[in-house]
């Protein structure tokens, strides 16, 4: 089960990385980056569920969600001003 | 609108967040939470408030709204999954302008966010005219059929949101609009 979850997350991450590298525009790359961060966050949650120390690891997820949101919005503002 | 109604709700919310972060709902923790909440509200008080906050709250209708919204969230993901997996996705996009009927910014925000998480729709832009007429939400649709379907879906969302968060006057006005629409479509068919 763990293996299945990891494989699926890897495939998802690969998809987002593809979009991040290919573009073709900057917003496409932001979509890829934000998705990649979400996949990493889900990976942390899955790992935290398996480990005995899960309660502490979960705090990092909280911060990561914030960072993802702030980052995406900041990039959006950048796109608005500076273009592609 | 009515800062006296808003303030306790904000304090309660912030204290809850505090308690949730510490995982501690004991008396000492809650008192500390209230103190921190008051401090935050004090230093963060807005210089110019005009209608952004949701002014009323009806718990039962809010639950209905959250329930409907959760079901929609699941359905939207099922639809995305189906479109992704099927060998020939029938994507037929469009950008539809959907005018709102209530003027409250808070409700428009709630509806615009909810639209993003419902099947097939995504909020792209919101135009808010300065002169107090309702805002217009621009919705991007994946599988477009016709404009009226999109507007009807969003109206349904708006209706539930107003029931949950709107003032009596807003609810009354919206119900009238919904009834008028229903009567029109009855007459047409």
């Amino acid at each position: 089960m763990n293996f299945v979850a990891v494989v699926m997350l890897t495939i998802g991450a690969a998809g987002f990385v593809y979009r991040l590298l290919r573009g073709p525009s900057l917003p496409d790359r932001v979509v890829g980056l934000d998705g990649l961060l979400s996949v990493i966050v889900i990976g942390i949650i899955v790992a935290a569920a398996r480990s005995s120390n899960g309660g502490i690891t979960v705090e990092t997820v909280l911060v990561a969600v914030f960072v993802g949101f702030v980052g995406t919005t900041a990039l959006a503002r950048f796109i608005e001003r500076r273009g592609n | 609108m009515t800062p006296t109604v808003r303030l306790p709700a904000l304090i309660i919310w912030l204290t809850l967040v505090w308690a949730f972060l510490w995982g501690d709902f004991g008396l000492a923790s809650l008192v500390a939470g209230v103190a921190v909440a008051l401090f935050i509200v004090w230093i963060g008080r807005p210089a110019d408030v005009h209608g952004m906050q949701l002014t009323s709250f009806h718990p039962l209708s809010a639950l209905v709204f959250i329930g409907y919204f959760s079901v929609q969230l699941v359905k939207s993901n099922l639809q995305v999954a189906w479109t992704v997996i099927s060998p020939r996705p029938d994507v037929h996009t469009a950008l539809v302008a959907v005018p709102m009927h209530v003027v409250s910014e808070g409700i428009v925000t709630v509806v615009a966010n909810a639209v993003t998480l419902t099947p097939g729709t995504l909020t792209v832009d919101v135009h808010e005219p300065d002169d107090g007429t309702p805002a217009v939400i621009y919705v991007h649709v994946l599988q477009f059929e016709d404009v009226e379907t999109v507007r009807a879906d969003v109206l349904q969302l708006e209706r539930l949101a107003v029931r949950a968060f709107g003032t009596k006057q807003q609810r009354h006005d919206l119900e009238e609009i919904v009834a008028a629409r229903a009567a029109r479509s009855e007459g047409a068919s």
Partner: protein
Amino acid sequence: MDTFAEVLLVLGSALAMIGGIGVVRFGDLFSRMHAAAKAPTLALILAAIGAAIEIGTLLAATTLALVVVLQLLSSPVGAHALSRASRRQMTIAIDDVDELTSDEHSDL
């Protein structure tokens, strides 16, 4: 109870995978945003619920509850900010009706 949590975690991963495939398969920016805004959101929620059940402590449950609420609030707003900014900078292919462009042109 544990298998239910496992199922949720796997479902969350599956949904994340679908989101990743979606951004590759869809042809234009806005369609990709459909996948990128909806799939990771629900995936995160499912995984968080599964992890909360599996870890079992109150602290983990409350923290994950906060994560869910934050994700629900921030994901659509982020997508909206990005869509709006992108439209100002580039034209996106739309198959059918496009009322935003016509509205903007009539305002100008």
